């Protein structure tokens, strides 16, 4: 349970909100690089943290993320003409460069210098790892660029996608750190999904349906360990790192690629669910990439020409009651991603957490909220940089390991939970 004011702090991320300032401490995924493929390509509307923005790439290929609306009469610059290192409003011809600086007001004499007085708010936009990242906070506190492992691998070793999720970001994040739902909601997929099946670890999962959980704080957030019995008096651990504010990784299975998510607020009632898969030591196979493109694993099929899932609230998520009854999909919804998203969206745009009844196995969620509320307050009151801003906090891995029973997973898997160049993820 959260009090209403606590729920508001965590779920409201617009400008001038404490939660908004918290999110504006970080580099966040804004667009896929494929959305701005070349110089002078069409601009793209972007809404992030409840701000309407426009992304575009000028004649030199420079990236821009700026206020969507022309300073003159408020026209959307999405209709703008991308020409000669600037974006020109088609209404009266005002033109802006990639920093948002107005460089031409045709109705004013050039020598008046009027255009120099006009500048749209803009944010840095940087390509890294197939993603265009932005930082929307004060320029004087801009941190170094993100350094997650998947960003640094070769392009052929990585797959990145995003999908629209129509609920508050926190509902999505809390699904990502709620390990106890996997044995229920996704039980049908372990032995059938091409990106999961075949791993020895799956047998531990299926052989012990009552995992035991441990939650440990890390410099950037948390490690959440789920423990099951293994042979020879050992434990099989699946360890999920969460890095503030919204990065999670799923423990690997066998030699399958490792996957994870970012949950980025669009506004307070929608978020982008970013998904990535990578393998630090090898290229993804054609079969793996095809499976990801086909919506397997943590991916979805899309409404053509959009990032909205094909199964969505407008078609009742294509729920299949016969498949539910037969046990193929426990909720009747196909695919891991939409199984999560459909239930999280069903909670409403912003769930009322004053009404929930958490239990002990929800301690991962309780601890994550606790740490975020403390970080928001420390930032608000004392200007303390929150955990997860430091790129050193990004150098984490998820892990699946078998350890002696008397070993804390944070100790026994210390190396496995850290990025190690040239070393495969710890997986079973």
């Amino acid at each position, binding site marked *: 349970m959260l009090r209403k004011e606590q729920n508001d702090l965590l779920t409201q991320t617009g400008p001038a909100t404490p939660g908004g300032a918290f999110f504006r401490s970080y580099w966040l995924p804004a667009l896929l690089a494929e959305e701005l493929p070349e110089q002078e390509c069409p601009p793209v509307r972007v809404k992030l943290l409840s701000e309407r923005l426009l992304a575009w790439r000028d004649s030199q290929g420079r990236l821009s993320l700026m206020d969507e609306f022309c300073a003159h009469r408020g026209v959307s610059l999405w209709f703008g003409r991308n020409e000669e290192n600037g974006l020109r409003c088609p209404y009266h011809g005002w033109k802006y460069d990639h920093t948002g600086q107005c460089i031409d007001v045709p109705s004013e004499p050039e020598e008046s210098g009027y255009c120099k007085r006009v500048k749209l708010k803009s944010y840095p936009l940087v390509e890294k790892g197939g993603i265009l990242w932005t930082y929307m906070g004060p320029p004087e506190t801009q941190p170094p660029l993100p350094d997650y492992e998947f960003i640094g691998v070769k392009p052929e070793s990585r797959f990145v996608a995003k999908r629209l999720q129509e609920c508050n970001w926190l509902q999505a994040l809390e699904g990502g750190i709620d390990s106890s739902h996997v044995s229920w909601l996704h039980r049908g997929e372990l032995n059938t999904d091409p990106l999961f099946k075949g791993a020895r670890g799956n047998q531990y999962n299926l052989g012990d349906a009552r995992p035991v959980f441990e939650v440990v704080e890390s410099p950037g957030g948390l490690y959440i360990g789920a423990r099951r019995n293994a042979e020879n008096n050992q434990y099989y651990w699946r360890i999920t790192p969460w890095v503030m504010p919204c990065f999670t990784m799923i423990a690997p299975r066998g030699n399958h690629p490792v996957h994870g998510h970012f949950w980025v607020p669009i506004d307070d009632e929608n978020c982008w669910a970013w998904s990535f898969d990578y393998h630090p030591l090898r290229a993804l196979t054609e079969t793996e990439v095809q499976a990801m493109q086909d919506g397997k694993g943590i991916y979805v099929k899309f409404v053509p020409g959009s990032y909205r899932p094909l199964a969505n609230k407008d078609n009742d998520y294509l729920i299949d009651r016969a498949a539910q009854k037969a046990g193929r999909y426990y909720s009747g919804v196909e695919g891991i991603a939409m199984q999560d998203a459909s239930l999280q969206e069903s909670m*409403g745009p912003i769930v009322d957490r004053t009404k929930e009844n958490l239990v002990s196995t929800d301690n991962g969620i309780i601890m994550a909220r606790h740490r975020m509320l403390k970080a928001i307050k420390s930032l608000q009151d004392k200007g303390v940089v929150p955990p997860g801003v430091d790129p050193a906090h990004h150098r984490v891995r998820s892990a699946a390991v078998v350890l002696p029973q008397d070993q*804390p997973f944070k100790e026994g898997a210390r190396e496995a939970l850290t990025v190690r160049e040239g070393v495969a993820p710890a997986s079973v």
Partner: protein
Amino acid sequence: MLSESARATRASESRFRIDAPNARPRAIKVIALDVPSEGVLRRLAEGAWENATFLRTPAGAAPAQPVGGWLAGLAGETMNLIEEIASADTIVTLSTAGENSEMAGVVAEACRAQGKLLTALILDADGGSEANLLKTLVPLRPYAAMLVVAHGEDYVETMLTALRA
């Protein structure tokens, strides 16, 4: 026409959610396993809790199996371990890294007999050594369905509030 899901998930539909209690209060028993943890519970007990009872294990060696009078309230009064566990919905033990947590075995055995899950919370102040943590964590692990290592004692209050204590 809107689908059922599209209609039901609109913000405007939230006001039709039934505004009535959806669960009965749960009895939460928090048991300090060492002296520093007892101090934490004493501070916490000064707050207004509706459903939390704060207890401690007695000094001396742990009995071989759960016994009736083996538990104490913070004021020192003897409490019946078996009755306390039987009347609890959630049982939490509180330990401090570096302290002896062997008493957890007795509490856990009483929980097992009553079919109750045990949550173990360890307070490990920032900078605490791994050896200290290990000393406390290893005896707890076989018994805890949920084991949490927290850096600050404020987490105890957060967790109890979240569980509606």
